[in-house]
């Protein structure tokens, strides 16, 4: 597995380098035109990455809290969490973006900047999914490890912190890298609220150069490389951090 992995990463990096070189030297005269837009592309890519990272980690933190709240909070909190999850999982992200851009500011008479909307919505959205993964993982280890923890005199909060969560978070990793993929792809939606992410930049370039197919292919390749690279890294991390005895059932 590790050999295939090394080969894959090297192949990926090489092809990316070749692509950039070809673009730079205009060998693919098709793609040469992009060179002067590269700074713009970079900005777009950075925005996309920012939203993604904020979303996934924010989602993890919030999702874990939601999972704990759901397990221990009592009826009222559980129902509230259920509604939250159903809303964010049942509606398209575009709607959620619009709701945070128009509906909430109107109802509460506040101003929310598009950038904040982007960050907030993706974190909230991801949390709704991650809560499910974390809760499932916690329940998988829960019963017996909780009893064992009690038997040595630890309090419930201590047990959750030192015994249950460390195990649950390891179990969650594969589902997590899946969530990462989904999240990155959906960040393209921020263009509808005016944020200049990678896809929006693509549209701009198309608008200016009318090189439609080439541009979108280029953008697609960038996304592809980014997602594949991170997924592979997540796999590697999982292999390294794995503890014999804590595995996920596939």
């Amino acid at each position, binding site marked *: 597995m590790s050999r295939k992995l090394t080969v894959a990463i090297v192949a990926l990096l090489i092809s990316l380098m070749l692509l950039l070189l070809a673009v730079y030297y205009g060998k693919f005269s098709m793609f040469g035109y992009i060179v002067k837009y590269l700074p713009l592309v970079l900005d777009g890519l950075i925005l996309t990455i920012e939203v993604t990272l904020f979303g996934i980690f924010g989602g993890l933190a919030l999702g874990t809290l939601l999972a704990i709240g759901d397990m221990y909070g009592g009826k009222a909190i559980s129902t509230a969490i259920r509604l939250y999850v159903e809303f964010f999982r049942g509606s398209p992200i575009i709607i959620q973006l619009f709701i945070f851009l128009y509906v909430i500011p109107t109802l509460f008479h506040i101003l929310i900047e598009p950038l904040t909307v982007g960050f907030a919505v993706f974190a909230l959205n991801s949390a709704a999914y991650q809560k499910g993964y974390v809760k499932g993982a916690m329940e998988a*280890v829960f019963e*017996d*490890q909780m*009893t*064992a*923890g*009690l*038997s*040595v*005199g*630890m*309090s419930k909060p*201590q047990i959750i912190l*030192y*015994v249950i969560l*460390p*195990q649950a978070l*390891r179990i969650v990793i594969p589902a997590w890298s899946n969530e990462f993929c989904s999240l990155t792809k959906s960040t393209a939606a921020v263009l509808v609220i005016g944020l200049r992410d990678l896809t929006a930049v693509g549209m701009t370039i198309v608008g200016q150069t009318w090189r439609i197919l080439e541009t979108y292919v280029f953008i697609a390749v960038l996304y592809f490389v980014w997602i594949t690279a991170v997924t592979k890294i997540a796999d590697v991390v999982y292999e390294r951090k794995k*503890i*014999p*005895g*804590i595995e996920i059932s596939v």
Partner: protein
Amino acid sequence: MTSTVMESRHLWKAYEAHLVAVKDVSFRISEGEIKLIFGPSGSGKSTFLRCLAMLTTPDKGDVFLRDVCLTKPGVDLNRARARIGFVFQHIWLFRHLTVLDNVELALRRVLKLPKTEAKERALQALREVKVEEWAHHYPAQLSGGQQQRVGIARALARNPDIILLDEPTSALDPELTGEVIDTLRDLAKKGTTMLIVSHEMPFAREIADEMIFYDEGAIVETGPPEQFFTNPQSERAQKFMIRLIKKTKRE
């Protein structure tokens, strides 16, 4: 005058209307005593043991650890449980921690010992159960018998007043029970107060001061081991011992 370590008074625990696991059970164990509870499966023995450690809350009745009443509201159960060692049938070590960390965890987080002292005491406990060389491995890498010995070390490390063992060998392959039993024998020699639920009859005969026959939620008969092996008083105990002897004869 040996003092009572643990006591239950008129303890009740039921799961559903007809499933009474603990029926008005009053019981006492004193310092240095080793008592063994045995009986048909499903009779409620494990539930009773858990109630003593307050891992399960009894419906009615009181539990005492020395002079502290554990069933009173407002009692700090965590501190109480820190003075009771519990060994589980399915072991339940903390999978994500090394063997050493497993034993150390409670010492650091519950007794709040400093790192070096906790580590030393943990190693000491592992030495007593003879698994010291596995200190830096993970539970999944050990055999069942070794894991259970770590479980015993985990219970021992806090120098508890008493150790409760819930069928410590029942989940192990037959070849592995021996090492656990040897460990328990060593503990017995050191004068540890132990309350064991088990089916290991030869072992019971050897080290138990008193055996308790538990059936259908209640203590049916108590007495020194010899009593059960030669002349059980109650009919149910007689039936049980006969079945048990038949079974061991067949094996």
